[in-house]
């Protein structure tokens, strides 16, 4: 079960995401990870998403799914803020369309569940 404290304190998708690292990330993977939030809380929620089997358990597949869904975003976009804004819009749109998953009772947008799972499967930022 996702810890409430992790969920509450982890700032996952709740509009108070962790402070972005200064400057743009140098690699797309790092940019995506920075945008999603590279923290134990995010990884914990991501691990729960994977454990519940509601998202693909493959980092590349997850990233591809997200990039495909964000058609307006440039493929090589490396600005975490731009990625985060696009992910936020996708998340809201998923919720409105009923594209949701149930993770230990928490109702999450499918895209945000994918994003957290991607973070959980990625090595921490240096």
């Amino acid at each position, binding site marked *: 079960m996702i810890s409430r*404290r992790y*969920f509450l304190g982890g700032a996952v*998708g709740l509009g108070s995401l962790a402070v972005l690292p200064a400057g743009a990330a140098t690699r797309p993977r790092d940019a995506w990870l920075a945008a999603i939030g590279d923290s134990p809380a995010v990884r914990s929620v991501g691990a729960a998403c994977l454990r519940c089997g509601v998202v693909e358990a493959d980092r590349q597949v997850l990233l591809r799914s997200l990039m495909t869904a964000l058609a307006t975003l440039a493929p090589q976009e490396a600005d975490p803020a731009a990625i985060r804004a696009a992910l936020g819009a996708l998340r809201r749109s998923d919720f409105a369309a009923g594209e*949701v998953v149930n993770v230990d*009772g928490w*109702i999450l947008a499918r895209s945000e569940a994918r994003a957290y799972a991607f973070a959980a499967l990625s090595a921490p930022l240096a």
Partner: protein
Amino acid sequence: MLIDARSLADKAVIEADLCIVGSGPAGMTIAKRLAESGIRIAVLESGGRDVEPEINRLTEGELTGLQIEALETTRVRALGGTSTVWNGQCRMLDVNDFEHRPWIPHSGWPFPRKELESHYAIAHRILRLQPVEYDLSKWATRTGQRFLEPSHDIFFNRVSLTRPVHFWTDYGADLEKAEDVGIYTHATVLGIRLAADGQSVDRLDVGTLDGKRLTARARRYVLACGGIENARLLLLSDDVHPNGVGNGNDLVGRFFMEHPRFVSGVLVLSGKGLPQKGLYGDYYIGDGFAIRGDLGIRAEVQEREGIGNVLGRLDPANEDEFGPGAMAARHMLKQLRQGRVPDDLMANLWTVISEADDVVATAYRRLIRDRDRPITTYEVESYIEQVPNPDSRVTLAEERDAFGQPRVHVDWRLSEIDKRTSYRAIELFAQAVGANDIGRIRVVVKPEDIFPPTTGWGHHHMGTTRMNDDPKSGVVDRNAKVHGIANLFVAGSSVFPTSGCATPTLTLVALAARLSEHLDKQFKEAST
């Protein structure tokens, strides 16, 4: 004039133009509206000024199916009826509650809400609900409070208006003075006696607990003794029609509805939270008048999802309260309060012991709650429309009351659509808060556990003498007249064909005001 029926001679006859059975919100509204019309009115009330245990025991009955609260604790035989114990919360039914909804069997009222608008206006005045404002944004502006504003079209904010009017305390004195109104206390109606042709009421048999038997005769009669007792009285009166009065199509007592309610989720807000004394609780405006905001699901979403109407009530909570330990403790406490042995006792006890930190933290935070701390976590209570179900019903029991009359048997049953509404509602609220960046919801019920033994109720008894223009589908017609009986009417929530998710008093008072106009017109036409 207030008359204790026990002071009358045995076999005395009470004569009036209109006889109203019951002095609760429905009966008192009709008496009040017609008090100055020149019509001689007799109000027959089973109780007295205060609740008397011996009399209130007449309301006891059997319960099967899903449990509701013991009947004698949720119904009152006294002047003012159930308004002596209610909390005064009111809201109109929604426009779609009146419509025929193809996905909800037996839905649809004989008239649209707009036909009741002028009577709703009267009901607001009677219930002293001023100002009549159902737009939460207007209350937010007026009070300087924030609220959850939807930008997607799944949910909307509802508003309830609250002032606990006590119908006898507030209106009794005027009626006591009214020349043409006689209010008889301790006068329990025991049966409706029909004329030999079975098409009109000839008289009512009335009894007092000290052994007197009286007769009440009038030109017209209104049953206004509650959502269960109205049906019981019709069923008890079986001397001419063996199935009871108005029951030629076996509909009396069927379609019993309540408002199932239960905690279905936890809302965690994403922002700074809302003040504890905010709009999603009883917000006192002044002079005993309060408003309350709740969440609703839009009519078009109900249609798309094939569900009934629903209200999401937000109650401030602490994060700790939703850990497994605290949830197990609450589950057990709730069942104990309902007088039951908690189910899964050992498993729940073990959960409480193994999660003791959560349980202690919950209790501690409840005790020392910082009143200024913004609320970031809310318990979501789903309060759903029970759709009409003919198998959910009121019948007569074997056991007898102090008058030797069969007690009532209530078999409350819910249906698959109610289960779907209950589960989908919290999912839809979760979608809505996510789409609006309000926060996230954790669902704390599972589809297989919907309507657990701890399911609550609203103390709202509805539907047992439902309104429909077709006698094969309803007990009363659009004017609340019992089909096939020329001079017998029913007032109260028992005539509701559907229940919506609004508290019923405002609507039943509006319907009573409507019925009083109809009766006034009938009496005037008869006298010309």
